[in-house]
């Protein structure tokens, strides 16, 4: 269908549209018009992605003189694929209606591991070895050597791509990673380098958060993007954590030992180079005098490094004189590692700010802040000069330099925490030095500054006023949408007691109580016998899940559960978890029914949908609070209190509840879908906890469902499932329209927004 939003004709690939999708588009358009940032919360299962894509592409089409580019960031690769698939659908629709003039180029970008098609490279075990194997075949000096010596192996796909030179372009269209690989195979070109190259010409780029938020990466991949871009962070409820992670580094004694080995190897290389080709080192020295900005001219295969701290001025400065010479730089690094070693030998927990840390480095080993700041760039320049291809061997020294650069760049928002052992296992010495970032706004600041519009959207952004404070920006539009439902297709419940009326909770003192474990087990057992198809259970942590599953196994509850459904479980091994999920879906497809045990804050909770029959019920066992004794968390809470006046308790509750909401929200994908959500912990019945849940869940949480015991919950589940399995009128019978057709939109014009809210 197509319709007008003010001056923009929107092409939407379906026959109908939800009213909230329409309202979402209206708000989004306002933000684009104002060239500002926005924050939009819309419940899962209302088609956020297609609404976004549809409006932004239509917006571009309606303003051909000034096309905006869309940078769409997803959390996971499969979301990337899904987004591109939706875009493909939309693009086909637009092509069908407007003809070939609207052709656009959209592609996904991922690491070599996900894009490589060279069988000898891609079969490598992990991504580091894939990267290294690729560099071994594609680095400029390797190819130079191959010209002289035919025995040197290169990658035929890369060679073909190079040979095609400017002809190597992707024709317009929408390319998922699958499609890119297929295209690469067909043409014999390397899809990874092709995609990297095409990113600057594409109208839509879909990639992971990292490519914009991690300054090390953003400096390489995203530096070419023009200001007239719209950046979308989808599923952005955890964006503050991603920002913080991007700027945090930790060092252990293994890291230091590895770094020492790296340094020895590098000094051997330097000696060898001095004997054979001293001119190369001299050329590097001259380049460093002029500043590092030149590195943009390096051949494409080599540009794989960037400064972890983005501010532009750093690139314009010349490298300090005392680390320009390779030997000098190595000795600086040796001294730095010695210093870290000394710090790790402490017997007490130490915590300090970056300023005093830098000062202490300066007094003890004589390395000043400016030298620290240039460590990362200087290292990579040296590695290029030394023609080191097996970069995965040199990760340790990179980590050290990364830390040095961060400490040298930022004076606030960080702390250095040195712990001689893990809190929970004090008898095992495991010293670790952590540089932790507390301020999420540091990493995202360049993004807000560089791009015209940044859209932050998710199903759970409650409370919506907290995010602008955490990320330090001013949104022009900040809106939370409710869900217009044809029928009450979600049924949240708070379960506070087992069938024996004893309270259930994962609170520290109740957690390992056998009575609570039994009551949780009985709850699941009752539910598996009532609910058809798939059930998903979330636990507060891996260790808790392992513990409770083991105890269910020993007490025979697990055996009884298995008489109704198959049981799959998330593990820390990603491959195994993926296969378990695949089997889980198959079990739901064939009608066998299954239960999936998963962890809040885990990978599954983050990105896997349990829509339709894949999840008719989610049980959240406990409140997923963070481990509150962690020093890093305490330091962050302190920072938040001092800087933003956010109370510790409030932040912890907010964080736990957004995780819980995220977990249970996975169960709904469209309005035709239905599902139940059980919050199984007595603490959810308290108002201060519950009120942090997003509005679309709260509006369905009836007062009668706030304090249930197991048998009451089972009764409600039976009733609900019976009601939901009936056929119903999709367009919404009771006065309020929940599905709009083109005519409906034309009739009401822009009055829809008012009609809804």
């Amino acid at each position, binding site marked *: 269908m197509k319709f007008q939003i003010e001056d923009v004709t929107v092409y939407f690939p*379906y*026959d*109908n*549209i*939800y009213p909230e999708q329409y309202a979402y588009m209206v708000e989004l358009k306002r933000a684009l018009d104002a060239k500002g940032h926005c924050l939009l919360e819309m419940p899962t299962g209302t088609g956020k992605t297609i609404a976004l894509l549809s409006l932004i592409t239509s917006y571009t089409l309606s303003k051909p003189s000034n096309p905006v580019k869309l940078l769409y960031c997803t959390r*996971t*690769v*499969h979301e990337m*694929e899904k987004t591109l*698939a939706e875009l493909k*659908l939309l693009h086909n629709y637009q092509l069908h209606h407007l003809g070939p003039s609207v052709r656009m180029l959209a592609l996904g970008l991922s*690491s070599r*591991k996900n894009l490589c098609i060279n069988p000898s490279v891609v079969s490598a075990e*992990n991504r580091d070895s*894939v*990267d290294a194997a690729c560099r071994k075949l594609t680095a400029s000096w390797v190819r130079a050597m191959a010209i002289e010596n035919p025995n040197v192996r290169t990658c035929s796909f890369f060679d073909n791509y190079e040979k095609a030179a400017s002809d190597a372009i992707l024709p317009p269209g929408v390319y998922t990673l*699958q499609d890119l690989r297929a295209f690469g195979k067909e043409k014999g070109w390397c899809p990874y380098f092709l995609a990297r190259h095409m990113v600057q010409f594409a109208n839509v780029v879909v990639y*992971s958060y*990292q490519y914009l938020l*991690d300054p090390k*990466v953003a400096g390489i991949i995203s530096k070419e993007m023009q200001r007239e871009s719209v950046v979308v962070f989808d599923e952005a409820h955890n964006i503050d954590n991603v920002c913080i*992670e991007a700027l*945090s580094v*930790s060092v252990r004694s293994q890291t230091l030992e590895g770094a020492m080995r790296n340094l020895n190897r590098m000094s051997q290389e330097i000696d060898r180079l001095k004997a054979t080709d001293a001119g190369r080192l001299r050329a590097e020295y001259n380049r460093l005098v002029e500043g590092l900005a030149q590195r943009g001219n390096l051949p494409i295969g080599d540009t794989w490094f960037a400064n972890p701290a983005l501010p532009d001025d750093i690139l314009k400065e010349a490298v300090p004189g005392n680390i320009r010479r390779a030997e000098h730089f190595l000795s600086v690094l040796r001294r730095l590692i010695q210093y870290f070693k000394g710090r790790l030998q402490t017997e007490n927990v130490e915590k300090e700010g970056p300023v005093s840390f830098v000062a202490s480095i300066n007094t003890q080993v004589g390395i000043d802040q400016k030298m620290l700041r240039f460590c990362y760039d200087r290292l990579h320049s040296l590695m290029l000069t030394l023609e080191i291809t097996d970069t995965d061997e040199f990760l*340790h020294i*990179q*980590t050290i330099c*990364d830390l040095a650069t961060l400490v040298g760049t930022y004076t606030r928002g960080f702390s250095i925490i040195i712990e001689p052992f*893990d809190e929970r296992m004090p008898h*095992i010495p*495991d010293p*670790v030095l*952590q540089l932790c970032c507390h301020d999420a706004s540091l990493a995202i600041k360049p993004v807000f500054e560089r791009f015209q519009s940044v859209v932050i959207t998710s199903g759970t952004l409650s409370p919506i006023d907290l995010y602008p404070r955490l990320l330090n920006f001013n949104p022009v539009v900040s809106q939370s949408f409710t869900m217009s439902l044809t029928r009450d297709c979600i049924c949240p419940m708070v379960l506070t007691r087992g069938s024996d009326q004893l309270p259930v909770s994962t609170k520290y003192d109740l957690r390992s109580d056998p009575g609570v474990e039994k009551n949780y087990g009985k709850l699941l057992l009752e539910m598996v016998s009532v609910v058809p198809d798939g059930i998903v259970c979330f636990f507060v*942590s891996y*260790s808790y899940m*392992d513990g409770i*599953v083991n105890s269910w*196994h020993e007490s025979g509850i697990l055996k009884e559960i*298995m*008489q109704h459904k*198959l*049981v*799959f479980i998330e*593990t*820390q091994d*990603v*491959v*195994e*978890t*993926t*296969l*378990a999920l*695949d*089997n889980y879906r198959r079990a739901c497809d064939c009608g066998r029914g299954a239960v999936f045990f998963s962890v809040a804050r885990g990978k*599954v909770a983050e*990105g896997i*949908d349990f829509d339709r029959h894949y999840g008719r019920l989610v049980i959240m066992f406990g409140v997923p609070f963070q481990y509150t004794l*962690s020093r890093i968390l305490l330091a962050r809470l302190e920072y938040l209190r001092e800087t933003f006046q956010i109370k510790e308790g409030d932040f912890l509750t907010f964080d736990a509840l957004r995780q819980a909401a995220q977990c249970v929200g996975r169960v709904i994908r*469209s309005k*035709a879908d239905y599902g139940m959500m059980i919050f199984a912990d007595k603490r959810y019945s308290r108002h201060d906890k519950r009120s942090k849940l997003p509005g679309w869940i709260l509006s369905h949480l009836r007062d009668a469902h706030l304090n249930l015991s197991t048998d009451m919950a089972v009764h409600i589940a039976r009733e609900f499932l019976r009601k939901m399995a009936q056929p119903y009128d999709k367009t919404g019978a009771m006065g309020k329209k929940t599905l709009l057709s083109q005519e409906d939109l034309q009739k009401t014009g822009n009055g829809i927004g008012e009609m809804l809210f």
Partner: protein
Amino acid sequence: MYSLLVPSFCAINKLSSALFQGGNYIFEFDSFADRDICREFVAAAIAFHGETGKSTSEKPAAALQDEQLSTAEMEHRIKLLQEDNELQRLHKQFVIGGILTEAEFWATRKKLLDQNDRRKPKQRVALKNEMWSVKPLSDGQSNRVTFNLTPEIIHQIFAEKPAVRQAYLKFVPNKMSEKEFWTKYSRAEYLHSTKNVVAAAAEAAEDEELAVFLKQDDMLTNEARRKIRRVDPTLDMEADVGDDYMHLPDHGLLREESKDVLDSQYEPYRRYFSQDLNQHAAVVLQGRVVDVELGDTRSVAEALARTKQAELANEVSDGNLEKDLSHRISRVAEIEDLQGPRDLAVAPLCIKDPRDYFDSQQANALKPLGDAGSGVKTLKFNVSSVEAYGSLRELISEIRVTGLSEPITDPEVAFKVLSGLTQNISSTKYHLGKSPHESILDSLPKVTKEDLLHHWTSIQELLKHFWSSYPITTKYLYTKVTRLKDAMSQVYPKLQVHFVLLDNYNCFLYNGLPTCVYNFSCIFSLNSRKLRNLCSQISGIKFPYLSNQCFRL
């Protein structure tokens, strides 16, 4: 095996008849399988005796006359009889009543016999969704620990732990005996159940065969790596690991969940319950892939290994994996809810029992479907060959011009027709023995109705045999025909009792016994001399009313 069993059958037959008359017997068997077969047979025999009462003596005689039946066949027949009440009644009446021999009875039901073997694959029993956890039985006094393994459990172990299966094929019986093998395996399981990784590693270092069980299963790991390539891309979390542009260790905040660190030398001996849980569920989901007798451990292991290899070969040859995967993504991407109404999907027509289907459709062929709205054209049924040829040519030329539409019929129309026909079939079945508009049968008392229907089926059965004996070339056939004739003559007086009771028996004849009537009328209108001869023999049966009736019809 069968040759041994068949004589024992006769023995059991006699025994069971004796058993029925009273007295206790104790049987001893070599194996459970033998016992099960015999038990079933005896049970069936007792059931027969119970029904027939006195006529026990004829049964063994009939059975002896039979061709030697294999146990499987015998079981199959018994099963058929048990399943179909009517068949059992007929069998009782004619075979045990001595009118037909066992072979004759089944000869007309060949289709039933082999159809059930071939078409309906034996229902496979799913694997039990129960994990075999080691619950060592300790007697409390010595250090002895006892484990119980059944063939079912062994099958499960082989399916869930390919390394154990492989080890079995490798070690047994060359290197160690079966018992030693399982003892060793149980020891490994016991070590695991104590959760003492260090002890397990120490034991494994001393005994390399034990180490096979204690180490992590490499075959599973390889299989996982293979399978991950075929996984649904919408849940491929493996792709996320290392999606970041550059990957440095120790970046990001430390996870709160730190694995308890263990020396790398012990790492291979660590085992997680969650792994077993997932593997177990995966195997159960896959179901019973092999169809072998569970008792023979070696053949189970070999069969499982074979299926794995076949699976591997299939995967290699499967070329359109990529296409399939991207198709899957695009299907997921759509929001069905917002979509307008769709065309119905095309599904291939699949008729399980064509005879059953088309026989019951005969009536439909002549009358249009219930709804007049579907635009059924009136068709000419009597056409000359020229006309038929003409219309065929016309149709072909039309197709030449327009081409075949794809799909050939409009799915909507096809669906309508199909559901109409299906409804008709079910209603014909329901109206069995009565016409849709008049149901005089229904007005009869229930007992009478059932009796009549039974007579109808039994006469049908007899007539079937009667006609199948034609032409009468041997003495055997002649006696058979006589026997049948006698039997039919016995039916008549029984029927007459009902007829007398009924006012409107003409109607009954018309409605309830169409086949009989048809058959008899055939007999009476036949011309050939031999048949006349036959007819005169039959006329001895004396059906005065019926024959009159027939001619009038």
